[in-house]
C-alpha cells in the first residue's frame, strides 16, 4: 500500500506521518507537494497537521483550494483513501469534501493534551481493526478544533453512521468534561458518505509507538493495512 503525505507551505506533521509509515510500518511512502494534481501512484493520501498558509483567512481555507486538494474527490471516487488529521481535517471541511466546519476552541486557547476517543463506527477502512465502543487514547494539538455543522447535516451524519470518533472519558462516557474544545456532540472525527475520506482532529501519528506512551493510533494504520491484505488494493484501477 503506497501512502502519499501532502506537504503544504506551513505543514508540520508531514515528517511525523512519514516516520511512522516508513520506519514503524515499513510501508512505501512519499511526500507530495501541494502543487501536484497527479495522485495516480498512491493508495492512501494523508493530509497532515500544521498551519498550512499560516492558517491565514481561516484554518485550512487557502490549502482547501490547492491543486492537490482539488484532485482528492476524483482520487477518492476511484477508491483511494484520504486521511486528514488536525489541519488536514480543517482543510477537508474547507474544501467541502467533508461537511461542517472547525471553529476556534471554546476556551479560546490552543490545547495540546491527551484525549480519549470513543469509536462510534468500526466499519470504516480506517477503524475496521477496532471495536465499536472501544476507547482510544490519542493527543490533540490545535487552536481551532471545535466541530460544528447545522442540524440537518448532524442528522444525516448520525443516520448514515458518519460520526467515527467522539471525545469521551477514560471509561468511555461522552461528557462535557471530556470535550477539549467544545465540539458539537463531542465530535472528534467524521467520514464522508462513501466511507473513503476520514477527518479527525487528534494525531494518530503521535500515538504509534511505546516510546510515546500510547499506541492506539496504530489501530488506524493497521486497519488501513489490514484492509489492503484482504482486498489487494483499494484502487479500482
Amino acid at each position, binding site marked *: 500500500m503506497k501512502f502519499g503525505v501532502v506537504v503544504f507551505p*506551513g505543514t508540520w506533521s508531514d515528517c*511525523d506521518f512519514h*516516520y511512522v509509515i516508513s520506519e514503524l510500518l515499513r510501508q512505501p511512502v512519499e511526500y507530495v507537494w501541494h502543487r501536484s494534481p497527479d495522485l495516480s501512484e498512491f493508495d492512501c493520501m494523508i493530509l497532515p497537521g500544521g498551519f498550512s498558509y*499560516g*492558517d491565514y483567512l481561516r484554518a485550512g481555507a487557502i490549502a482547501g483550494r490547492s491543486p492537490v486538494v482539488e484532485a482528492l474527490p476524483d482520487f477518492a471516487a476511484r477508491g483511494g483513501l484520504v486521511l486528514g488529521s488536525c489541519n488536514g481535517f480543517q482543510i477537508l471541511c474547507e474544501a467541502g469534501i467533508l461537511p461542517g466546519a472547525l471553529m476556534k476552541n471554546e476556551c479560546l*486557547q490552543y490545547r*495540546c*493534551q491527551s484525549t480519549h476517543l470513543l469509536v462510534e463506527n468500526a466499519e470504516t477502512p480506517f477503524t475496521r481493526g477496532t471495536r465499536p465502543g472501544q476507547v482510544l487514547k490519542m493527543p490533540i*494539538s490545535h487552536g481551532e478544533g471545535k466541530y460544528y455543522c447545522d442540524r440537518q447535516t448532524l442528522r444525516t451524519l448520525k443516520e448514515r453512521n458518519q460520526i467515527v470518533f467522539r471525545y469521551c472519558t477514560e471509561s468511555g462516557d461522552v461528557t462535557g468534561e471530556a470535550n477539549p474544545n467544545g465540539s458539537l456532540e463531542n465530535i472528534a472525527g467524521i467520514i464522508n458518505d462513501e466511507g473513503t475520506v476520514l477527518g479527525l482532529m487528534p494525531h494518530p501519528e503521535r500515538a504509534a509507538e511505546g516510546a510515546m506512551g500510547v499506541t492506539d493510533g496504530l489501530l488506524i494504520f493497521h486497519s488501513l493495512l489490514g484492509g489492503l491484505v484482504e482486498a489487494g488494493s483499494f484502487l479500482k484501477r
Partner: protein
Amino acid sequence: MTWAEPKVTLELALAHGLTADEYDRIIQRLGREPTFTELGLFSALWSEHCAYKHSRIFLRRLPTGGARVLQGPGENAGIVDLGDGLALVLKIESHNHPSFIEPFQGAATGVGGILRDIFTMGARPIALLDSLRFGDPAESKTRYLISGVVSGISWYGNCIGIPTVGGEVAFAPEYNGNPLVNVMCVGLVPTDRIIRARAEGVGNPVFYVGAKTGRDGIHGATMASATFEEGAEERRPTVQVGDPFTEKLLLEACLEAMATGAVLGVQDMGAAGLACASSEMPARAGTGMEIELSGVPQRETGMTPYEIMLSESQERMLLVVARGREALVREVFAKWELDAVEVGRVTGDGLLQVRMDGQLVAEVPVKTLTEEAPVYRKPTERPRWLDALVAFDPLTLAEPASCEQALLALLAAPTLASKEWVWRQYDHQVGINTLVLPGSDAAVLRIKGTRKAIALTTDGNGRYVLLDPYAGAAMAVAEAARNLACSGAAPLAVTDCLNFGSPERPAILWQFAEAVEGIAEACRALEIPVVSGNVSFYTETEGRAILPTPVIGMVGLLEEAERRSTQWFKGVGDRVALLGPDAVSLGGSEYLWTLHGRVAGRLAPLDLTGERAIQSACRTAIEAGLCASAHDCSEGGLAVALAEACIAGPAPLGAEVALPPGARTDLTLFGEGPSRIVVSVPRHAQRHFEGLMRECQVAWSWIGTVGGDRLAIRVGGRSVVELPVAQLSHAWRNGLARLVA
C-alpha cells in the same frame, strides 16, 4: 529617489544613544564626520545589545572549551558534539524589553529570533524552552502580560511546528515593571553540515532572502540597551511584528538551500538587521562586503538607506553563496515562494560599503564596527544594603501554627504551582521526539536513528542571586545540572541569559560580575562549557531594577534513551531515599517569601565537589535501573519535593516519610539547599542501591516508603503533615490557573 540625509552633529549622535567619547572615537577612526547612515550603523553595532561593551570584560571569565565543543561563543549559537555524526546547536536569548512594551508580539518574535539563530547554523530546531518572570500576580497588569506572553509564544511556536518542551515561570514584585522572556532553542545538525556566519571568498555573491523589509523595529537593539521611564508603551513602534508562517518557509528553504552545498555562510537579520549581518559576517572572515540597497525587497515605499540598514523586520537572512551556484539557491527559494535577491558581494578590502542606486552612503571598516567597538570596565561596588539583608535570621520568626497549611500555601504559590496552564497552550509533542513531557525536572527528547536522548532545562533563582550573586548564580548552574541528573543525563553544555539592571550603576555591575564569576566557578567544577549566551542589561524601570536573574539553559546527554527517569513516584512499596547533605536554610526561600513576604537571610552553602558526587551517584543509579523516580529538592524544600513526587505524575501516590529532628520543623520541611535529590527505589533494587551509594561515598539515607493516598511526614517521631494526596494535588494544580484565569 528622494531621500536626503540630515547633517550629523554631536547632538544627533547623543540622541542615538552614543556618548560624546564614542562619537569622538568614530570621527577619529573614520578621519571624518560620519554620514547619517554610518551614524545609524555605529549606534546599532556599538549598542550594548550588539557589542556587549559593559559585559565583555567579565564574560571572558567563563570556561568555553571542552572535548565536545565544536563552536563556542561568538557565532549565532554554540555547538556540541553528540557523537554518531550529529551535533547539538543551542542558544538562549532574551526578549524582555519588547515583551513589556507589547507582550504578544514581543514574546512571539523572541521565539522567531532564537529559531533563526539555530537554523542559520544548518541545524533543524527540535525544541524550545521559555524561562519567564512576571511581577505580582495580583496586579492586573501582570495578568495581561502573562496571557500576552504565553499566547505570543504559543502562536509562534505552534504555527512553525517546533515543540515547546520546557522552561520555568516565576513571580516576584521586582519584575512588575520588567517581565523577563528568555527563549532557548536547540537544533540538530550533522557535524559535516555545520554552517557559520562568515563571509568567505572574495567575489562570492551576497543574497538577501526571506520577508520584505519594512520600517518596523528600527532601533530595536538601541531600545533594548536603555532603561524604561514612564510611557514606555509609546515605544511600541520599536517592537517587530512576527510572521511564523514566513519563518516556517524560511526555515525549510534555508535548510534545503544549505543541503545543495551552495550556501557558504548565513546570518540572521535580527537585532540591528542588515547593518549587523553585513558587518559581522565579513568581520569574522577577515573580508569586506559591498551592498546595493535598491535591490532589497521592501514592503514600504520611500525607505531611506538608514531605514533599510537598521530595520529589524523579522524572518530575513543574509546568505553568502558560492559564485556560479546562484541558480540553485534562487530555485529553492522560488519553490518556497520567498524573495532571494543578490544584493552585494564579498570584497577583500575589509570595508563595508553601502550604496543606494550606486551612490555611496556608508563606507566603514567592518572591524571598526565590530571588534573595535568600545569595551568598558565600569566601577563595581557591593551595595551597602546587602549586609543588613543577609544578616537577617529567619529563625527569629515564629514557627507556623500548622505545617500542613504552610505546605498547601507553598504548593499553591504561583512560582511553585503546576505550570500546566502555560504548557498545555504549547505544542510540546510535534516531531514525536518528546519522551518526557513538560512537568518533570527536565524535558527528554530522543534522537531518532540513535539510542540516545537529550535532556533540557532552564534554571535561575533571582532571590538567591540578590542575596549572594556569586553563590546564587553558581547554584543555578548546579541546579540545572541536577535536574539533568534526575532525568538520567550527563551535562553537555550551558547557554546563559544574564538579566540585570543598568550596568552603569556600580551595585548592579557588581551583582553581574559576581554572578558571572559564580557561573564560571560552577561550570569549571562540573566541567560544563558555556557555548553561547546573551546579556540583557538595563532591565529596570524608573530606577527600579529586577532581581538579578541569570538564567542557565543546559543540555545533557543520555547514551540510552530507555534509561531515563521522571520526578514522580511510581510503585507502592518503593523505598524513598534522600541523597545529599543536611545543610539547608530558610534564607531566600520560597517559604520565607510566601509565608512572611520577605527576601532575606543567608543561603545554604554550596559544595561543588559534593554536588558533582551526588549528581554522579544519582545518574549512575538511574543508568543501572535502580530508581523508579528522581526529583531535585529546590524551591519549597524537601516537603514540596516530596509532595510533587506524590502528585506530579499521571497516577498520584502517597508516601510515609520519617525525618530526624532538626533545629526547627519548618527548617527541616521547607529549608532550601543545593545538592539534594529525592529518589524512589523498588524493593528488589534496594540492596544494590545501598551498595552503589556506599561505593559513591555520598551522604544519603532512607526516609520513607511510597504508598497510600496521603503524604504523611513525621519529624523526630512527631506527625507534622498528614494530608490526602488529592488535597495537595488540588492546591498545586489550581494555584496558577486561579490567579491568571
